[in-house]
């Protein structure tokens, strides 16, 4: 597994929105074929980090390498070539709601390949079969449930047979069974097709069922990186608190900066 074929590398990535520092010098490496999970509380910058890794946001400082290429140095055509090798599964599925399920899944194939229509139709059926939705090609996204939309989004993301898959909270807002199905899909894809996966989530159950390695983010920094077992045994009180979901601990739930009493009396 760890033959050190690094496909994603972030070096000291920093990002601020206005005054707020979102990412504070994050470095990480993801190797080919592994499932790398980024976990952390809401607002800790994990979705922002994901957007940096796919080149959707440029870092203020630091570098991101994807498939060995420095994203900042690529021109538009080179960037497009890299993007065709990655797939992204969005938190809200991000299906095009003016298109049917079939058209959504076939869109990248129709735009980027010269395949015949019947070949594309076959590929669409195969991808939808993988996510258990074959036969739903003709439906519009608005006719689907949240879980089904997410699975269609996943089918669309793997339509071009990507080398790397990115998942933004794939199981958030789904019932436990669908969440389990999605976790199994992610595992299947990475084990059977040896796709590298980067998963952003705060669902502890899926973290420990799919991850080869885990990074925990807190306040724009990577607190701990390691195999799930190491993370479980971590001495770091913040990591311990996050895993146990305890309300008391070093990670403060309160975001307020001023004194409560003073504010009330004002």
């Amino acid at each position: 597994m760890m033959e050190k074929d690094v496909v994603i590398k972030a070096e000291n990535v920093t990002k601020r929105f206005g005054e707020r520092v979102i990412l504070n010098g994050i470095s990480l490496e993801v190797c080919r074929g592994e499932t790398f999970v980024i976990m952390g509380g809401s607002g800790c910058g994990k979705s922002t980090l994901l957007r940096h890794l796919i080149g959707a946001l440029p870092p203020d400082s630091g570098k991101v390498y994807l498939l060995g290429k420095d994203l900042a140095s690529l021109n538009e055509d080179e960037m497009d070539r890299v993007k065709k090798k990655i797939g992204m599964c969005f938190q809200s599925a991000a299906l095009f709601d003016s298109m049917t399920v079939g058209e959504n899944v076939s869109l990248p194939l129709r735009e980027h390949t010269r395949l015949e229509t019947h070949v594309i139709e076959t590929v669409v059926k195969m991808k939808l079969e993988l996510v258990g939705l074959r036969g739903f090609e003709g439906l519009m996204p608005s006719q689907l449930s949240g879980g089904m939309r997410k699975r269609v989004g996943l089918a669309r993301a793997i339509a071009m047979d990507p080398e790397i898959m990115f998942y933004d909270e794939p199981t958030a807002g789904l019932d436990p069974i669908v969440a389990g199905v999605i976790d199994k899909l992610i595992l299947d894809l990475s084990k059977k097709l040896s796709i590298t996966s980067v998963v952003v989530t705060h669902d502890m159950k899926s973290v420990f069922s799919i991850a080869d390695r885990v990074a925990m983010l807190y306040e724009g920094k990577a607190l701990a990186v390691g195999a799930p077992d190491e993370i479980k045994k971590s001495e770091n009180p913040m990591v311990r608190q996050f895993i146990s979901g305890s309300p008391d601990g070093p990670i403060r739930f309160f975001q307020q900066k001023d004194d409560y009493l003073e504010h009330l009396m004002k």
Partner: protein
Amino acid sequence: MIERIGGIIISAGRHTYRMLSLLSQTCFWIAVGPFKRKFPKPEGVFSQMVFAGVDSLIIAFFVALFTGIVIAMQSAYQLSRFGANIYVAPMVSIGLARELGPVLTSLVVAGRVGAAIAAELGTMKVTEQIEALETMALNPVRFLVVPRFLALVVMLPCLVVFSDIIGIFGGFLVGVFNLHLNPYRYITFSFQFMLWKDVWTGLVKSAVFAMVISMIGCYMGLNTKGGAEGVGKSTTSSVVTSFILIILFDCILTGIFYFAKQ
């Protein structure tokens, strides 16, 4: 106070710059797309043309018809004093071809199509669909803006020709049934005084208005922020901005055509 005025000017300048860069990207894709095998699919452009053009026929019909009737009645009110009722005909046809046909049709289309573009792209933006396009290596300008731009630039002048004809027909109704003019003479007079210039200046205007409507709609849509409220805001501001810019460009173009003849 001065600070605020300065701020407004700076932000207006920034929007203008970004809108022009969107326009230049659109022109780039139209010019370069065919050679890179990246021209928008004909079906996509066609469906936008149906939406922007064919579906606007009914509303353009009513606006043009009533405008024609109104110009005929208003000019008859003046011309009848000189016993020059027959001049209602060229008044209506030239007024429509030069000015009212392009401007009123464009305003209607800005309200109908421009708002729809802003709302659609705005919703796509806030639901991550634009980002999804980008991660699939599909340029949103090429994929979303170019078909809408082309469809409007082709269809709006066509709509204007249609409106001109319907408006002349509206004037004809007043001329024949109210002013009791000879129908044959009315038609002859309508076109006798009309120059080619009257028609093509109107069509050039409408093509420019089409660019304004599609660019503003797409720009506002693609720059939407913050959920449903943001979509509402960008829809409103796309209509308001289009209206102002249509009238502004109308003034500029009319000025150019007016002084160019000398």
